[in-house]
């Protein structure tokens, strides 16, 4: 479906330094720096896949999405989407894709949502029967029936995003690009949006590419992750594999009769990170020490009343990843 090989894109940016002297200097002479937004980028995405495209700001995420959607022409390399070169056959290409920008609306602010939809129907030349069918389906799945007659400006952020997503799908695109689709949404709306995207992918086989900083989105939606940094793919694999590799640390909290930090003896791979009269927090390295052994070691030295083991958050995982690859 999507095939990217050795894609390169370089931008030239004017340098600006602070201070009156430098400002005056740059008034007459300007220096430029080159930024390799895409630096020999390679990946393929199959039909019906859901892929999370992650990376720190400025890593090349939006440049990639722009190339894939036909907005940006790369310097060199090959890129085809559904057999087409996006920027060479722009109109034919964009008729097959849908794009949702979390922070940029395509709905008309002052007219009812349904009017934007009929306009999009004509822009994309969707025949009436197919339009009806899609609209009914989207209305039902996203719960839009109360919203369609309301002007966009009167909708809440969550309601608007649901309409936004429907607007991007009215023409049945084969590929859906989602850019921060849940940014600023409340918990209920987030879950509704995620559920819908999952269902759409399952039922229509729509290929979904998701760029986001929200790791919960990634966890809920995608099995495969593409990590980009400095214009290259640094890591291409499943979220589970990443978790197995990087999330080896556990936090174990123990409510107990009392522990003496000085006399405590702990096996390798286990350290005491917090100690209170009736409570202690340990951090475990599960590659060295299985959780059951850790529990055994503590219970041998005190009475355990209650116990919980937690994974560190996905955000911590990503921080680790960025650090390991020296990006971000």
């Amino acid at each position, binding site marked *: 479906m999507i095939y990217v090989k050795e894609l390169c894109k370089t931008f030239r940016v004017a340098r*600006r330094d602070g201070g*009156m002297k430098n*400002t*005056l200097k*740059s*008034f*007459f002479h300007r220096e430029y720096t080159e930024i390799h937004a895409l630096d020999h980028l390679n990946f393929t995405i199959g039909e019906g896949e859901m892929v999370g495209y992650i990376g720190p700001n400025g890593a090349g995420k939006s440049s990639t999405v722009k190339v894939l959607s036909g907005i940006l022409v790369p310097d060199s390399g090959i890129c085809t989407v559904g057999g087409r070169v996006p920027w060479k056959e722009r109109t034919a290409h964009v008729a097959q894709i849908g794009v949702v920008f979390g922070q940029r609306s395509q709905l008309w602010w002052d007219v009812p949502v349904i009017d934007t939809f009929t306009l999009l129907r004509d822009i994309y030349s969707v025949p009436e029967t197919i339009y009806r069918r899609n609209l009914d389906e989207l209305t039902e799945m996203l719960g839009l029936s109360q919203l369609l007659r309301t002007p966009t400006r009167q909708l809440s952020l969550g309601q608007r995003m649901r309409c936004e997503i429907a607007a991007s799908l009215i023409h049945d695109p084969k590929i859906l690009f989602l850019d921060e689709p849940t940014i600023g949404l409340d918990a209920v709306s987030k879950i509704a949006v995620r559920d819908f995207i999952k269902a759409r992918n399952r039922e229509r086989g729509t290929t979904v590419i998701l760029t986001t900083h929200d790791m919960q989105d990634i966890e809920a939606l995608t099995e495969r992750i593409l990590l980009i940094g400095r214009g290259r793919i640094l890591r291409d694999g499943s979220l589970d594999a990443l978790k197995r590799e990087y999330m080896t640390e556990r936090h174990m909290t123990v409510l107990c009769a009392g522990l003496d930090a000085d006399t405590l003896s702990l096996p390798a791979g286990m350290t005491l990170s917090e100690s209170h009269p009736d409570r202690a927090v340990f951090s475990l390295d599960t590659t060295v020490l299985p959780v059951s052994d850790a529990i055994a070691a503590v219970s041998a030295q005190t009475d355990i009343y209650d116990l919980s083991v937690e994974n560190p958050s996905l955000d911590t995982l990503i921080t680790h990843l960025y650090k390991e690859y020296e990006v971000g």
Partner: protein
Amino acid sequence: MKRLRKYITFFSMRVRCELQYRTAALAGIATQFCWGFMYILLYHAFRRTDPSAYPMTEDQTATYIWLQQAFLAMFASWSMENDLIAQIKDGTVAYELCRPMSLYPMWFAKCMASRLSRALLRFLPILLITGFLPDGYRMVLPPSPLHFLAFFVSLVLAFLLMVALLMPAHIAVFFLLNESGIRSIFANLVDFCSGSLVPLPLLPAGLQTVLSYTPFLYLQNTPYLIYSGYVPLSAAPRYILIQCIWLCILVPLGAWMMKKGLSRVVIQGG
């Protein structure tokens, strides 16, 4: 003293901002040249048609137009402070009340700074180049150093007067919550009545008399006419005095309006 330094820092920041946009400055200068030429050619055409009805000399006309172009940014009637207007419209201006500075002088200074910083970059090149144009199109020197002195004092006062007039226009947004109508009414009124559309001496005498009872005649029109000697030096002190009187009326009026406007914001709950 400390407060003054705050204004100076703010001003130098604005100048630095403007300096970054060298292309904009060059484009502005080029545009103003063309406009200046266009107007000079137009008024020369009227002068050719009926020299007896034309009150100014060729030099006076050209000088008036070039001064106008050089100091355009200072007297630009249509440019308002967009961030201030945004503050009023979304109600965040209420937070400004928590600051230890009073708002009117602060806004006055902001308005002055953004205008001066833009003018600073543009007026010298225009004045320098237009000084070397052929006869009839050239910007000439004032008749005497005293003329120049009077021009300078009057220019400063006219600028302060312009900002003092702009303040109520900004404050009106408190009451109407929409600036586009205010902007066009204000801009057209000021442009027409202060001579930036047609130099005031070319208007019918009756209209000029009417305008002399308003502050508009004492904006840019006054210093430019003093510079070229159209207003005799002996009359200059009278014009300068009237400028001062208008300032004494408009500044307290603006400050009072602002107080009223702010109380509205507080009542509405911002």
